[in-house]
C-alpha cells in the first residue's frame, strides 16, 4: 500500500467520482439540514404546548367540578369528555369520574392501562401543585438520600465464593483489575484492606438536595482505574439522588443514551453515500479503469474509504465539540471521538462487504437497512447497562456515554471495548477485498457463493486452515459478546419475572457459543473444499479439521480478551469463556494440563467432525456441524455444571 496512490484515489473519490454529489445537491442537503435543525428546535420548544406528539389515546369522562379534571388536563395521554355511563359500557370511554368517585371499574386491558396511567399522573400532579404550597415541610414531609454501597456476602447474580463479609467493597475491588488465571480472584485481593469498613458511611448520612456527596463512594473505585464499574453507578445517572421520594430515579442513563444516539445517526448517512459509491464501481464495469491502474487493490479500497471515514470521524468530533462547548456535556473529550472510531470502521466495513455482495441498488438498500439495524442494536443494547455491569463495555458506545458524563476510562477498559469491533472491521475489509476483483465485481453470483469466494480468497495451502480460524476469531468474539449482552437482558428480565437463578440463560449462552464457534471453525473449510483448494479425502479432512481447531485454540488462548475485563464476575460471562475456573485442591500441573489440553482436544475433534462433513458436500456439512455443535455443547455444559 502506497500513501501517495492511496491519497490520489481518495482525492479522486472526493472530487470527480462517477456518482459524485454535485453543487446543487449540496445546496439542497444544506437547506434540508437547516430545516431539520429548525424542526428539531420547534419540536423541543413546543413539546409542552400540546400539539403534535401528544397521543391522547385514553378518553376520560370528568366534569370540571371534579378534582380530577385538572389532573386529566395536565397530561397529554388523556382526552377530557363528559362522563357518560353508556359510553363507558360500550368502550367509547375508558375512565369516568363523578366527583372523586370512579364510576366504572376497568373491564378490559385498555381501561386498566388507562387507570394505571391516571394513577401515576395524579401522583405527579400532586407533587407539582404542592411545590407551590406555603408550608413546604408539610407538602414534602419526607426527604431522601440514596447511598449506593457495595455488599459483601452471597449475591443473587454473583454466585462465586464470597469474601467473608468485610465491607470495604469499593476500594478492595479496584485492586483486582487483573484477576489471576485461577479465577478465584477475590480472596487474594481483599485480604489486605478491610480497614475502610463503614468509612464511607459516616460522611454520607447527611440529608439534603445535593447528590455530590452521595457519589463519594463511587469515586474511589473509578479512580482505581480497575474494572469495578459498579462503583460508578451513582454518579452516572447524573441525577440528584437526594430530595423527595419522587426525585429518586432508578439508575438508568437515559439522557446520555440520547446523546450517544447523536453519534450513530450520522453514520447512516455516511454509509448510504459510501455504499452507493462502492456499488456504482461495479455497474457497467466502471471499476475496471481503477483496477488496471498501477494502484493496488488495497490502495483503491483504502483510498475510496478514507474520505467517508474522515467524514464520519469529523462529524463525531464536531458533535463532541458542540456538546462540550454548549455545556450540554462538558465532560466530552477526544476519548469520545476515539471510541466512535471503531463503530465508524465497523459501519463502513459492513457496508463495503454489503456493496461487494449486493447485486442491485435495491438489494443494497436492504443490506444497508440490515447493517443499520443490527449495528445500532449492537452499539445500544449493552450501553443501556452503562452503570450496571461491566457487560456494557462490550459496546464502544458505553465509552462515549462514560466520557460524556465525565468519568475516567482505564486503558484496559478502552482496549476491551474497542479492539474487538476494530479488528472485526479490519477482517471484514479483508474479506470484502477478496471480492474486489474482476471475477466477482462485474458478475452476478449468488450471495452464498460470493461468501465462499470471499473466504476462499484467503486460502493458499493446507496451513491456511489454521490461519483462517485465527482470522475469524474477532467475528466470533464480537458475536459471542453481543450474544452475552442480549441474553443478559433476557436473563435479568427472567430473573425479575420468574426469579430464576440464571440457569436458562447459561444454557442458552452455551448453546449460542457452541454454534458460533463451530461455524467459525468450519465455514472456511467448506469454502476451501468448494473451491477445490483442499483434497476431499478422509485423512486430509481430519488433518484440516485438526489444524483449524488448533488455530482456533491458539487464537482463543492468546487473545484472552475476555479476561481483560470483569466479565467473568458474572456467571453468564463466565459461561461464555470456555475455560472455567478450576476447583480448589487440585494440583496445579494437573489443572494446567487439563485446562489446556481439554479445550484443545475439544476444538480439534469438533472441527474434524465438521471438516469431514464439509468434504462430502452441502448436506453432510449441515449434519456434521449439528453433531459438532452438540458435542461442543455437551462439553461446555459438563465443564460448567461440574464446576458450579
Amino acid at each position, binding site marked *: 500500500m502506497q500513501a501517495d496512490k492511496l491519497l490520489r484515489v481518495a482525492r479522486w473519490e472526493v472530487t470527480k467520482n462517477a456518482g459524485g454529489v454535485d453543487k446543487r445537491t449540496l445546496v439542497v442537503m444544506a437547506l434540508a439540514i437547516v430545516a431539520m435543525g429548525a424542526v428539531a428546535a420547534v419540536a423541543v420548544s413546543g413539546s409542552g404546548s400540546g400539539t403534535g406528539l401528544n397521543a391522547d389515546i385514553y378518553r376520560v369522562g370528568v366534569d370540571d367540578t371534579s378534582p380530577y379534571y385538572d389532573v386529566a388536563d395536565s397530561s397529554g395521554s388523556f382526552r377530557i369528555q363528559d362522563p357518560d355511563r353508556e359510553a363507558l359500557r360500550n368502550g367509547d370511554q375508558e375512565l369516568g369520574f363523578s366527583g372523586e368517585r370512579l364510576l366504572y371499574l376497568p373491564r378490559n386491558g385498555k381501561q386498566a392501562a388507562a387507570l394505571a396511567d391516571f394513577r401515576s399522573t395524579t401522583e405527579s400532579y400532586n407533587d407539582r401543585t404542592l411545590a407551590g404550597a406555603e408550608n413546604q415541610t408539610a407538602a414534602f414531609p419526607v426527604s431522601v438520600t440514596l447511598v449506593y*454501597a457495595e455488599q459483601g456476602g452471597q449475591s443473587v447474580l454473583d454466585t462465586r465464593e464470597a469474601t467473608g463479609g468485610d465491607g470495604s467493597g469499593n476500594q478492595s475491588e479496584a485492586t483486582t483489575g487483573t484477576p489471576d488465571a485461577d479465577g478465584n480472584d477475590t480472596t487474594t485481593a481483599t485480604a489486605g484492606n478491610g480497614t475502610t469498613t463503614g468509612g464511607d458511611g459516616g460522611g454520607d448520612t447527611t440529608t439534603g438536595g445535593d447528590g455530590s456527596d452521595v457519589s463519594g463512594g463511587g469515586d474511589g473505585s473509578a479512580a482505581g482505574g480497575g474494572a469495578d464499574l459498579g462503583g460508578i453507578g451513582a454518579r452516572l445517572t447524573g441525577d440528584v439522588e437526594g430530595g423527595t421520594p419522587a426525585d429518586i430515579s432508578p439508575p438508568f442513563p437515559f439522557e446520555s443514551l440520547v446523546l450517544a444516539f447523536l453519534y450513530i445517526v450520522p453514520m447512516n448517512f455516511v454509509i448510504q453515500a459510501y455504499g452507493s459509491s462502492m456499488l456504482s464501481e461495479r455497474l457497467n464495469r466502471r471499476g475496471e479503469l481503477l483496477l488496471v491502474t498501477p494502484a493496488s487493490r488495497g490502495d483503491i479500497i483504502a483510498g475510496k474509504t478514507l474520505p467517508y471515514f474522515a467524514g464520519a470521524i469529523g462529524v463525531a468530533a464536531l458533535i463532541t465539540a458542540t456538546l462540550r462547548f454548549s455545556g450540554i456535556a462538558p465532560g466530552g473529550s477526544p476519548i469520545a471521538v476515539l471510541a466512535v472510531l471503531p463503530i465508524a470502521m465497523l459501519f463502513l466495513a459492513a457496508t463495503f462487504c454489503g456493496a461487494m455482495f449486493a447485486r442491485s441498488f435495491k438489494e443494497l438498500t436492504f443490506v444497508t437497512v440490515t447493517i443499520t439495524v443490527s449495528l445500532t442494536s449492537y452499539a445500544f443494547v449493552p450501553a443501556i447497562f452503562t452503570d450496571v455491569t461491566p457487560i456494557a463495555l462490550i459496546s464502544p458506545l458505553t465509552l462515549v456515554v462514560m466520557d460524556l458524563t465525565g468519568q475516567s476510562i482505564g486503558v484496559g477498559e478502552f482496549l476491551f471495548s474497542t479492539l474487538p469491533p476494530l479488528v472485526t472491521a479490519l477482517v471484514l475489509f479483508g474479506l470484502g477485498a477478496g471480492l474486489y476483483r474482476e471475477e466477482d465485481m462485474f458478475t452476478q453470483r449468488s450471495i452464498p457463493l460470493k461468501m465462499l469466494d470471499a473466504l476462499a480468497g484467503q486460502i493458499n495451502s493446507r496451513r491456511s486452515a489454521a490461519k483462517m480460524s485465527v482470522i475469524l476469531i474477532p467475528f466470533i468474539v464480537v458475536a459471542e459478546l453481543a450474544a452475552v449482552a442480549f441474553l443478559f437482558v433476557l436473563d435479568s428480565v427472567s430473573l425479575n419475572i420468574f426469579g430464576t437463578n440464571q440457569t436458562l440463560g447459561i444454557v442458552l449462552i452455551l448453546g449460542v457459543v457452541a454454534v458460533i464457534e463451530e461455524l467459525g471453525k468450519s465455514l472456511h473449510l467448506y469454502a476451501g473444499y468448494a473451491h477445490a483448494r483442499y483434497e476431499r479425502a478422509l485423512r486430509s479432512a481430519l488433518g484440516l479439521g485438526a489444524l483449524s481447531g488448533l488455530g482456533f485454540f491458539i487464537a482463543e488462548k492468546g487473545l484472552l480478551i475476555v479476561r481483560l475485563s470483569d466479565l467473568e464476575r458474572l456467571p453468564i460471562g463466565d459461561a461464555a469463556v470456555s475455560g472455567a475456573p478450576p476447583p480448589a485442591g487440585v494440583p496445579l500441573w494437573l489443572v494446567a494440563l487439563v485446562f489446556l489440553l481439554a479445550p484443545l482436544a475439544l476444538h480439534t475433534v469438533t472441527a474434524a467432525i465438521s471438516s469431514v462433513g464439509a468434504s462430502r458436500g452441502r448436506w453432510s456439512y449441515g449434519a456434521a456441524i449439528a453433531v459438532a455443535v452438540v458435542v461442543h455443547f455437551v462439553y461446555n455444559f459438563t465443564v460448567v455444571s461440574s464446576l458450579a
Partner: protein
Amino acid sequence: MPEDRPWYRDPRIVIARRDVRSLSREKTIVLALLIQLFVAAFSGFLVVGLTSLYDPGAVASGEVELAITGDAQDELIEAAVEQDGASTVRFNDSTEARRAFQQRQVDALLNATYVDSPDGGGQRIAVTARIPEGSIRSTLIVVNVRRVLSTLERQERVDRAGYLENDPVPLPPEVEASPYFGFTYTILIPLLLFLPAFISGSVAVDTITEEMERGTLELLRVAPVSLLDIVDGKSLGMVLLAPAQSLLWILLLSFNGISVSNVLPILVFITAVATVVVTIGVVLGVATGKRRPAQLLYSVLTLVVFGTAVVLPEHPATTIAKLAVDSPTLGTYAHVVGAVALAVGGYALARRYADGVDASPF
C-alpha cells in the same frame, strides 16, 4: 395505445409487476421482512427489558427485604405494610443493621429520623437509603424503596393536611394493568407500520436510478411506453408493497394478542404515506439520475417531512396510534383524508414534472 388490451397487460401494470418480481427473485424482500421482524422482536425485547429495568415493580413480584432503623421507623414500617413488594425488618441497633446489609441478609438499609426542617416549619422525616450497587437487582430495590417512601409521603401529607392550603388529590384505585400498553400503541405499532413505507420510498429511488445508471432505461424507452408510464408503473409497485406488509404486521400482532382496530383506515393512511414518500423518491431519482445523491437527499428529506409533521395538530404516528387503539377523533379521520389528498396532489404534480423531463440524456 390499442384498446383491446386487457387491463393487466397495461404497460404500467407490467412494469410494476416486473419490479416486484425482481425484488422477490433477489430474495431481498425476504431480507426486508426479516429485518422488520428483527426490529419488532428487538423493540419488544427492549420494551420488556427496559420496562423491567425502569419500572421493575411493573413486571416483578420479587419481594425486597428492607432493614429499618431510626426514630421514625414506625411510620416507615406502617407505609411498607401497604406495599406488596416490600417486607421490613426492624433493627434498633444501626451497627447490627449495617452488618445485616453487608452480609446480604437484607436488600436495603433505610434509616428514618426526624429532623428539624431548615425553614423552621416543623419536622421532616429524613430517610437515608443504602442500596446495593452494581447489580441488576439494585434497580428493583430502588423502585420498591421509592414506592414505600411515596406511600410514607402520602400518609404524612394526610396527617399534616391541616397545614396545607390545598389538599392533595386522592389517588384512584390501583389495578393490574399491562405496563406495555401505552408503548405498544404509541410507539411500536406506528414504527412497525411506517417502516415498510419508508423502505418502499428508498427502493423507489433505487429502481429508477438503477435503470438510469445501468443504461437500461434506454432499452425500456425503446418499448412503446413513455417515461410517464415507467414512473407510474414503478411507483405503483412500490406503493402497493407498503400496505401489504403493514397488513402482514397487523395480522402478526393480532396473532400475538395485540388487537389493532380500524384496519381499513390504517391501511388507507399507510398507502397515502407510502405514496408521498415514494413520490419524493421517484422525483429525486428522475431529477438526479444517480443513486448516491438521490438516496442521501431522500433520507434527509423524509426525515424533514416526518419531523415537520410535528406542527400538525396530530403527528402521523399519533394518527396511527389513535386508530389502532380505537380512540379516533374527527381530527384523526381528517388527517387520513388530508394525507390521501396530499398523496394524490403530490403525485399529480410529480407526474407533470416527469412528463416534462427529457430522459434521453440518461
